[in-house]
């Protein structure tokens, strides 16, 4: 194509691009010269690629199909009388595609008008309250999906609402202080000891980050396990103590502030 009159983003999918090419060449949709269309389609994609655009897989799939059809056409038919090999009827697909595109603008107003027609849920007027017919598990899964789809709207509403109530900020510094206090008091403490009394998830995370921070700063050390243990770290049972040769207390300033949720 000498001049790029179209851009890839103009097309929702490969079929729209094909229709545009057909229109541009003033071709009969019922009699498409595959070779010509295939070449122009590939050229278009090549140009798009040259312009450093991401080409969606749908467009590439169509390109490979077109090339297969084109090569089928170019292969000499051994016996002329034989039927053509079965292949996608591109005309048929394009007509149906065009038809769907035409119809969509007519369906939207219908739906906008009649979509308000509501029906009644089924179980409310059951003659026997305890009667339950057999149920399909797929219906339950559909319900799970529905509920999950509400989840986003609820979460959005919640986040929009949160700033209006006082948002508790859980500073990691505070946790670091209490971790050090605990260790000073008891000498050693396990991870469970340090984390078990946190009232909220945010507190829990802040404390855990505090522990990590203290390890990073080498203010606390992990106690060697007993000799039977395979590893020196034992999950919740990991035991910490204060590093007697701790480096100077300075780096705590950058301790992260963690907000709730």
């Amino acid at each position, binding site marked *: 194509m000498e001049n790029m009159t179209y851009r890839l983003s103009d097309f*929702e*999918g*490969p*079929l*729209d691009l094909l229709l545009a090419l057909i229109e541009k060449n003033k071709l009969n949709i019922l009699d498409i010269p595959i070779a010509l269309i295939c070449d122009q389609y590939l050229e278009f994609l090549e140009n798009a690629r040259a312009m450093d655009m991401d080409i*969606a897989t*749908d467009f590439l799939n*169509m390109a490979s199909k077109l090339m297969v059809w084109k090569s089928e056409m170019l292969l000499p038919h051994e016996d002329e009388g034989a039927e053509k090999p*079965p292949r*996608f*009827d591109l005309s*048929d*697909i394009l*007509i*149906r*595609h*065009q*038809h*769907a*595109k*035409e*119809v*969509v603008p*007519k*369906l*939207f107003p*219908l*739906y906008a*008008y*009649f*979509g*308000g*027609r*509501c*029906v*009644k*849920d*089924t179980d409310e*007027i059951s*003659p026997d309250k305890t009667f339950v017919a057999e149920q399909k598990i*797929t219906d339950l899964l*559909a319900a799970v*999906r*529905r509920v999950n*789809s*509400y989840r986003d*709207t609820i979460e959005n509403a919640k986040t929009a609402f949160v700033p209006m109530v006082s948002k508790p900020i859980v500073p990691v510094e505070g946790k670091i202080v209490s971790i050090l206090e605990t260790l000073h008091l008891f000498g050693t403490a396990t991870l469970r000891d340090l984390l078990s009394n946190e009232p909220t998830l945010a507190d829990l995370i802040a404390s855990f980050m505090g522990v990590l921070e203290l390890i990073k700063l080498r203010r606390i050390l992990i106690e060697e396990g007993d000799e039977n243990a395979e590893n020196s770290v034992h999950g919740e049972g990991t035991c910490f103590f204060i590093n007697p040769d701790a480096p100077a207390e300075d780096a705590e300033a950058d301790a992260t502030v963690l907000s709730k949720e």
Partner: protein
Amino acid sequence: METENTLQPIKDVESCIEAIVFAAGYPMPYQKLSEVIGVGVREIKKFCARIAKRYESDSTGLLFLQFPDSCQFCTKEQYGPYIREALNVRRGGNLSSASMEVLAVVAYNQPVTRAFIDAVRGVDSSYAVNSLIDKELIAATGRLDAPGRPLLYGTTEKFLRVFGLSTLDDLPKTETVLPPNTLTDQLAIEVDAKEAPQQEDAED
């Protein structure tokens, strides 16, 4: 039936149909009404037509819809916003243009396989298809007798209701005339055969 109810007067049959269709909520097949009430399907349809007319002309908030094989009560469309607000229904009913396109492909070409939908749209449509199934606007209606036995999809009675149609013949006409659907079989064999086994299992 535990009691020896015999519905003689015509009015009674109509009321009985109303009561059953109301209690069901879902589209009630004429066949079922015929069996339960003991009146032929043809008669049942006539009674239903009278009921439908009564609710249409009456100043009531309800409508009695007649589909090709079933009937159902619903509310008149203009009260939809009030109902949504009273029942706290979210505006979940919105359809994206991708969904509407899939719906158009299914409605005018049904029954179709997923492969057919993908081919006619030229792009992968699985998200839109699943969302339409969840919204009960399309549903599996059977399986294609082809390798992989892929599911066939068609529109539902809910589709007819929320688009204000009595039958599929009422679908809007267009300039483009659709050829008869011969694609389905071909596509099913070529494309579905690869995908079908695991995909279809997951759906059953």
